């Protein structure tokens, strides 16, 4: 069996909440069967720690069991998947990359918390909301990652 190692990039607007959480679930840093505590979430790399300079930068979160590299990315837009695919295609590396948008899993609590923490630089107000929002979105994110993992399995020949 030949396994094609891919780079799986989870992206959203800010690249610091749902994309990082999804990437951590995929990389095995978070248990999909257990709701993470606030400490578990805040211990994740880059979670609620990104700065405006990080937009557009692909950040390595870890590797999954198949050896795929898992990344997170902030794009300042939720509708950029097509352009990311297009750029990868133009570079001739489309088979190496899979771009997955996690924006549909951003709920209002997370949106307000993320804005307070990252945009207004009030993390003491925003973080509790971020944690609450992420815990609320966690089951859906786990299901999304699992679907991505299963789809990814198709490329294994």
């Amino acid at each position, binding site marked *: 069996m030949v396994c094609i190692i891919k*780079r799986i990039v989870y992206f959203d607007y800010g690249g610091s909440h749902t994309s990082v959480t999804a990437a951590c679930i995929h990389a095995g840093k978070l248990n999909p069967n257990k709701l993470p505590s606030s400490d578990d979430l805040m211990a994740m790399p880059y979670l609620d720690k990104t700065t405006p300079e990080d937009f*557009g930068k692909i950040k390595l979160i870890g590797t999954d069991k198949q050896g795929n590299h898992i990344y997170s*990315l902030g794009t300042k837009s939720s*509708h950029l998947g097509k*352009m990311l695919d*297009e*750029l990868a295609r133009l*570079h*001739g*590396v489309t088979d190496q990359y899979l771009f997955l948008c996690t924006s549909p899993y951003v709920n209002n609590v997370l949106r307000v918390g993320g804005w307070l923490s990252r945009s207004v630089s009030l993390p003491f107000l925003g973080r509790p909301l971020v944690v609450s929002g992420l815990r609320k979105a966690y089951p859906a994110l786990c299901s999304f990652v699992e679907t991505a993992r299963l789809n990814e399995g198709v490329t294994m020949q």
Partner: protein
Amino acid sequence: MKVLLIGKTGVFDTLAVAYGCLNQTDINNCPYFGDLTLENNKELVGIGANKVGNELFVVGFKVPEIIAIFNRELESLSHVNQNECWQVIPLSLKGENITWLFAWLANAPLLGPMFLKWARNRTLNRSSYLLEYGKKLRIEKNLDGKDKPDLVFAAKPHR
């Protein structure tokens, strides 16, 4: 070499700049000019090639620098052959926010066509500035050269 110009609007102001780069002036006759479907889908639009065969593409995105950063990341992560690299140029054009606003409002259900006309007219009214910007860009970024500017090795330092 392939060159991608990214501005806030793809098929409005950025397209005019691309025309300036290609030393052309007749924006109004371009089939992509003011095409909202292309604008909304964020598709890369091929405008043409210059005399040395460098192809020019345009796309619109609200923060053009992010695409340039992402492109650099992609190149370094994937070890893309430097000779096949794309030159991605984020643009910062005077007054493009208003064009972007009109292009965005052009998606409105009833008044959309009016805003689309305003967006097109705004680009046409500013075409002298945009075409000139494109001409300057061509010289500044050496778009008539066959190699990516940063790939040209420096000569031995003068003592």
